[in-house]
Structure formats: structure tokens, C-alpha cells
């Protein structure tokens, strides 16, 4: 009689990363909402340096990108790599070391940022000792992930599934970009200065900055999409060939885009044009990828009526398509002249961050929770409620920022008949108030959804543990 031995996966560490991710989602979105509220009602900083907007915003971005996003990426990468290669992790111990080191690092990051220790580089604010620590954790992650694939049974699994390729892209490029942008001269334990200066510093910063979006917040989460959409839909991805083209187009294209953040600056004009041109070209692979995910549901669209987890995954693709169209349009010089430095940019970032990154992660985490703890979710109705809170919250946020951003741009460039500015800067700030309230409302809705998700997950885990205990006693 043939027996199939199922591989014993190392799921303990995946569970830990998953739970940490959702705890940080609640904390990160709460801090973002509080920071947004400070812009609408400035008294909320209570004249306390540690929670002023300038510091809280950075803590928010680091918490949602690295603490939430990083933990999601580590959880899903370790979940997917084991299942698509039919073997446990290369080293469970290394994975646990990575987990502990990462959480300790995140705690130190929050403390140091609240105390005002910052390199003042967007999405790369941590001072040099923590910078190096992050790089080491990332290398540990890359090593364990790569070795798990390298040591697979190549006769049983000859092909490396495309989700792993996207993770490879993320791991290799983020190491390279993080280290290069972080090159600095330390002058004390908590103070350093960038090794670059002037326009070169700006170019390196935005080469990193846009690739933090391109590789950390896109490639890694596309890996999640290419695995969890087929799993949740129980249908294969629409076109595997399209996924290969999507992967290579992204790897080649994203590294060029950073220059579009520096239009109308000291950067040579042609560099900005090149950045904008390739940004526009990137609409093609991005939409190809989004369609590839959505068309996976061809012939089974009715499942969206009943499968709330699938709704999160498919809605995330709609936001991915929307923001990968909006971004290139904003990079074109004519549009950029109006949109740059305004709230439109903030709205665009959040269309991607809330609509795409958070929603695809939420869908994946709900799916993993049921598989990892081998149970149904505590409440499917709460998932449906969460879906609507997240969607309406995101729409509130981005619509508020579109209106306020375009208004800002138009007010700043308006001239009267004598050629002088029609509005003072303070007038433009006052005009933003209703939209800042609208944004804070969107944040409250999104954060409430995240808190409901955490509650639903904890109750699910409790239910699963209670069942295990009952089985043990039976």
C-alpha cells in the first residue's frame, strides 16, 4: 500500500509572525489616525515632544511598513516557501532568532524615533546601529528562505513557484537598496551623517524611497497575491506566463522610478523625464498582474458574494490597479507641477498602503489563521463587517486627500491680476480643515476594522486551543 508522508511544516514561527503583524496593524493604524487627528485638531499633541506630528508620523510609517508589513512578509514567506517546496524551513531555530531580533529591533525603533533620533531619510529614519541590525535580520531571513528552496527535493518539486521569485526579488533588492541608502558616517552612537550630499543624496534617497514601495510594498505583496488568490479561490492563477512577464518587468522597471520624486529640483531634467517615462510604461505590467489576479476568478465571480476573505483579496487588486495608474500619472511633469508637495501624494500612498498592501495582507492572514490553527474563523460576519469598514475607511481617506491635494495645488499657484499670490499659505491650511477631519474619520474606520480583526483572530485561536484541550481530555 502506498503511503504519502506529508511534510511537517514549521508553523509555530509563522503563527508568531502572523499574530505580531495584526497587533502592529492595530497599533500602526491607531498612531496614523492620531497623527491625522493632530493635523485637524493641533491641541491633540498636548505640547509633548514625543507625540508631536513630526515624530508620531515617522513612528506610524515605520510601524505600518516594517512592523506590520515586515511581519506579514516574514509570516507569508515562511508559510509559502514551505508549502510550495514541500519541506520544512531550512532552520526553524534561525527563524525564531529572526522573529525575536525583529520584534526587539522594532521596539528600539519606536523608542529611538519618539526620542527624536533620526537620520531624516524618508522610510529609512533609524540611526546607524539599528540600521545595521535591520540589515542583519534581513540577511538572516534571506539566507533561511533561500536555503529552504535550495534544499528541496528537486525531483518532487523541480519548479520554483512564481510567488517565491517575487520574494527573492524583495529580499535581494531590499538588502542592496537599504545598505546603499544607509551609508553614513557615524559621529556618535546615535548620530550619523549621510555619505552622500546635495542632489546625489536626494537621488539616492528617492532611488531607495520609491523602491521601498516597489520591492518592499509591491513585490513582496504580489508574492502573497500569487499564492493566496489561487488558494482562496481554489482555482489556478489565470496565466502563469503572464506572472513570469509581470515579475521580470517589475524587476527591471521599478529601479528607474525614483527620479520622478525630484521633478523641478536640482536633478538634471532628463533624469526626471526618464523616471516619468518608465513610470508610465510600468502601467502595463502592473495592470497585467492585477488582471492576472482578478481573472483567476473567471467563471466563479459569484463566490465574492459569500467568500468575505476573497473579497479582501480581489478588492486589494482593484486598489493595486488604481494606484499603479494614479502614480505614473502623478509622475508626469505637467501633473506633478500641481500634485507635488500636496496631500494628493499622501492620498496616493494610502490608496496603495490601505487599499492594496493592507487588504491583500488581511485576506492572506485570515486564510492562514484558519489553516495554521486548523479551524474555522470565530465569526465570518465580523470579517464581512471588517471588509466594509476597511473599504469605506480607505475611500474616505483617499477622497479627502484628493480634494484637499488638488485644492492646495490650485491655491498655491493662483495669481491675482497684479501677478501676486492670490492666497497666503495660512489660508490654504485653513481650507484643508474639513478634509483633514474626513481623513481622520477614514482612519478611525480602518483602525476599528483592524481591532475587530485582532479580536476575531484571538477568539479563533482561543476556540482552536479549547478544542485541542477537549480532544486531549477525551
Amino acid at each position, binding site marked *: 500500500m502506498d503511503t504519502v508522508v506529508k511534510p511537517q511544516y514549521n508553523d509555530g514561527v509563522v503563527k508568531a509572525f502572523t499574530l505580531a503583524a495584526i497587533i502592529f496593524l492595530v497599533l500602526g493604524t491607531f498612531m496614523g489616525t492620531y497623527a491625522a487627528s493632530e493635523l485637524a485638531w493641533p491641541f491633540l499633541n498636548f505640547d509633548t515632544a514625543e507625540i508631536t506630528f513630526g515624530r508620531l508620523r515617522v513612528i506610524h510609517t515605520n510601524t505600518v511598513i516594517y512592523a506590520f508589513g515586515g511581519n506579514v512578509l516574514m509570516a507569508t514567506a515562511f508559510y509559502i516557501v514551505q508549502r510550495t517546496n514541500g519541506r520544512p524551513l531550512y532552520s526553524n531555530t534561525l527563524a525564531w532568532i529572526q522573529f525575536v531580533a525583529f520584534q526587539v529591533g522594532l521596539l528600539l525603533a519606536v523608542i529611538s524615533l519618539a526620542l527624536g533620533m533620526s537620520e531624516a531619510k524618508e522610510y529609512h529614519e533609524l540611526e546607524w546601529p539599528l540600521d545595521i541590525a535591520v540589515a542583519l535580520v534581513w540577511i538572516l531571513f534571506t539566507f533561511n528562505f533561500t536555503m529552504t528552496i535550495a534544499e528541496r527535493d528537486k525531483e518532487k518539486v523541480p519548479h520554483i513557484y512564481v510567488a517565491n521569485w517575487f520574494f527573492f526579488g524583495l529580499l535581494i533588492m531590499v538588502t542592496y537598496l537599504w545598505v546603499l541608502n544607509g551609508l553614513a558616517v557615524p559621529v556618535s552612537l546615535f548620530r550619523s551623517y549621510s555619505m552622500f550630499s546635495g542632489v546625489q543624496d536626494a537621488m539616492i534617497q528617492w532611488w531607495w524611497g520609491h523602491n521601498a514601495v516597489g520591492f518592499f510594498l509591491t513585490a513582496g505583496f504580489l508574492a502573497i497575491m500569487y499564492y493566496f488568490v489561487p488558494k482562496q479561490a481554489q*482555482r*489556478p492563477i489565470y496565466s502563469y506566463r503572464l506572472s513570469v512577464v509581470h515579475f*521580470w*518587468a517589475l524587476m527591471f522597471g521599478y529601479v528607474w522610478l525614483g527620479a520622478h520624486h525630484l521633478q523641478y529640483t536640482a536633478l538634471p531634467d532628463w533624469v526626471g523625464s526618464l523616471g516619468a517615462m518608465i513610470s508610465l510604461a510600468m502601467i502595463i505590467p502592473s495592470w497585467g498582474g492585477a488582471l492576472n489576479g482578478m481573472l483567476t476568478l473567471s467563471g466563479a465571480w459569484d463566490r465574492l458574494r459569500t467568500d468575505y476573505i476573497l473579497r479582501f483579496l480581489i478588492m486589494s487588486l482593484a486598489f493595486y490597479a488604481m494606484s499603479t495608474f494614479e502614480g505614473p500619472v502623478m509622475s508626469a511633469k505637467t501633473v506633478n507641477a500641481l500634485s507635488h508637495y500636496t496631500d494628493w501624494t499622501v492620498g496616493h500612498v494610502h490608496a496603495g498602503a490601505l487599499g492594496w498592501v493592507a487588504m491583500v495582507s488581511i485576506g492572506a492572514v485570515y486564510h492562514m489563521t484558519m489553516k495554521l490553527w486548523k479551524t474555522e474563523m470565530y465569526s465570518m460576519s465580523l470579517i464581512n463587517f471588517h471588509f466594509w469598514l476597511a473599504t469605506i475607511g480607505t475611500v474616505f481617506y483617499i477622497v479627502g486627500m484628493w480634494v484637499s491635494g488638488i485644492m492646495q495645488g490650485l491655491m498655491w499657484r493662483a495669481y491675482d491680476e497684479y501677478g501676486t499670490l492670490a492666497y497666503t499659505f495660512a489660508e490654504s491650511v485653513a481650507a484643508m480643515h474639513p478634509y483633514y477631519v474626513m481623513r481622520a474619520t477614514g482612519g478611525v474606520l480602518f483602525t476599528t476594522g483592524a481591532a475587530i480583526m485582532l479580536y476575531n483572530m484571538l477568539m479563533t485561536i482561543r476556540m482552536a486551543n479549547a478544542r485541542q484541550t477537549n480532544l486531549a481530555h477525551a
Partner: protein
Amino acid sequence: MSKIESYFHTDWAALTSQDWVGLLLTVAVFIAMAITFFYALRPKNAKTLEEQRMLPLRDDE
């Protein structure tokens, strides 16, 4: 008015060794990408590649 040819004018003699390394690497990567696209979209390879679609569906259930 800038002429299109002046926009694309390149002073080849002014290129430093870093410029040349960057230029050659970029062209090489672009060619590699074109080869990958050709491989992925070639009808002959469709079956081999599309078979991999099923991989996540048979992994842990």
C-alpha cells in the same frame, strides 16, 4: 525650442568608466529581460509554464 536631436545628443567622450559600466549593465539587463519575455510568451513553452499554475493548489491539502 529644443530640437529632438539635441535632446538625445550624447557626449560619448565625456562618459566616465562608471558611466560605461552602468550603461553596459543596463543594456545587458534589458536584453536579458527581452529574452525572458520571448521565452515566456513563445507558444512552444506555454504548456510547460502553464502546468506550474497548479502548484499551490496541491501543496498542503
